């Protein structure tokens, strides 16, 4: 139930990165978005795989809004 190599989760996280990069493209570079998402994912280690993509995206958006 912790961080997995589940391809579906990987894919969902990649999609989250793409969505957030698009949403914040006027304010932040895609590399920054990518780094924040990866950090969030590490912070959320231990969260069950099924809930992970949604929580990662939510936390990353919250953090990106506070810096951007």
């Amino acid at each position, binding site marked *: *139930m912790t961080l997995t190599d589940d391809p579906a989760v990987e894919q969902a996280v990649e999609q989250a990165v793409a969505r957030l990069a698009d949403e914040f493209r006027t304010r932040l570079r895609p590399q920054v978005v990518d780094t924040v998402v990866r950090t969030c994912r590490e912070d959320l280690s231990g969260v069950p795989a099924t809930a992970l993509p949604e929580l990662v995206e939510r936390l990353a958006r*919250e953090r990106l809004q506070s810096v951007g």
Partner: protein
Amino acid sequence: MGYVDVTGVRHILPDGRVLFDGVSLRVGEGARAALVGENGAGKTTLLRIVAGDLVPEAGAVTRSGGLGVMRQFIGSVRDDTTVQRFLVDLAPPAVRAAWEAVGSAELTLMETDDDAAQLAYADALAQWGDAGGYDAEVTWDAVTVAALGVPYDRCKYRELSALSGGEQKRLALEALLRGPDQVLLLDEPDNYLDVPGKRWLEGRLLETRKTVLFVSHDRELLARVADRVVTVEGGTAWVHGGGFAGYAEARAARHERMAEVRRRWDEEHARLVELVRTLQQQAANSPDMASRYRAMQTRLAKFEAAGPPPDRPPEQKVAMRLRGGRTGVRAVMAEQLELSGLMRPFDLEVWYGDRLGVLGANGAGKSHFLRLLAGQDVAHTGSWRLGARVVPGFFAQTHAHPEWLDRTLVDLLWHGEPGRPGVDRGRAMAALRRYGLAAAGDQPFGTLSGGQQARFQVLLLELSGATLLLLDEPTDNLDVLSAESLEEALAAFEGTVLAVTHDRWFARSFDRFLVFGADGRVYESAEPVFDETRVVRAR
């Protein structure tokens, strides 16, 4: 695998009386132990002590393997508890705690959606996973499919009060039997279950490898499931190591043994007292005897201080005298009888002395049929009549007598009713004594236990001189011992008995059966039929 070990447990009631003392029993791995005893003897209290809800005054309870408890009230839940909440409450403590944590983290997140709240929520979810919450949800899905026929996601917000008593019981039983707890305490798991439901329960209890301690009044269930019987009586508890089949014999033998031990103690006590008295007289004349006298005094004091062994528990003295009387050969005749909208027309002849069991689907009109014969106003077509000298006596469960609730037993007996002459206080008390109700004579009817109310109603039947007994579920609410005594009284009754029942053990004492089918058909059967399903009616 789990076990329960109870050693020397004592419980004192708030008024200072000792409910039971020196209770020791062990329910080993995989055992299925039944807990029986009269109403009010302390079965539920003992179960609560084993469950850890109550702390015993003395003694200890040890157990292993995780404990799942099904309380008596399940089946009559009428508040706004949801299926989800109900299943969480039956889950192991770790799952319950994790569920509460997720719930409160969600609430926080709704109010303040910041970094900290999100991380707290993530943490709660992780703990939910670690506590086995996701596995529990998979189990709950299997549970709701088995008990209600729908997946968990579709019924988790449904209110428990919308489920029937039987569905509530099934839900709880499925959850406990499929859950991780290895020791199950079930307080009257068969209440609210119809006979197919009881058969299902028996099957599930027989196949589980868990350790089960259960309270039940259903003798058929006890006989099929229990591999040992724990009896709470006489202020303590004892264990019969076999099934219910040999229980009555074992109990009688135990009582005889206790009486014998007590008798020997009394004899020894009398002998010592006599000896002390003789030595006292001799000591007055001879100083040599004085020391022997003192020694004997000490011996008697020690003997008395050790106390007498417990006497045999008082027999529940119920002497039901249902006499009845000779009536016409035909007791009940019905032609093309139909209770409006409930069934198809049927013919029936009941002969003097018949024991007719009325069985069938819930809602098929069995109780209405009995009320009709009792002379109450029930809409019907077709004809029926009672034979010569047939006096009906009707017995129904308590809710049928709201006007009795606030009146005392002596008052009810004194006033009498049409067809039942009133009796003075002396005769009333004498009759109450025979039914083990003397102490409750000045109590309002409504404050009696179910078993006491049932016994009182049988007493009224006796006084009314009924020659045709119409009994509606007479053994419901009766403890095992009272039910046996009712059966004995009915066996001795000279007259005709019609009884609606779903008690399989009780039904064995009948020789004909009238079955009210779910499809509206009413038919006779030589064997009891219990698998008519519930009548489905548009609501």
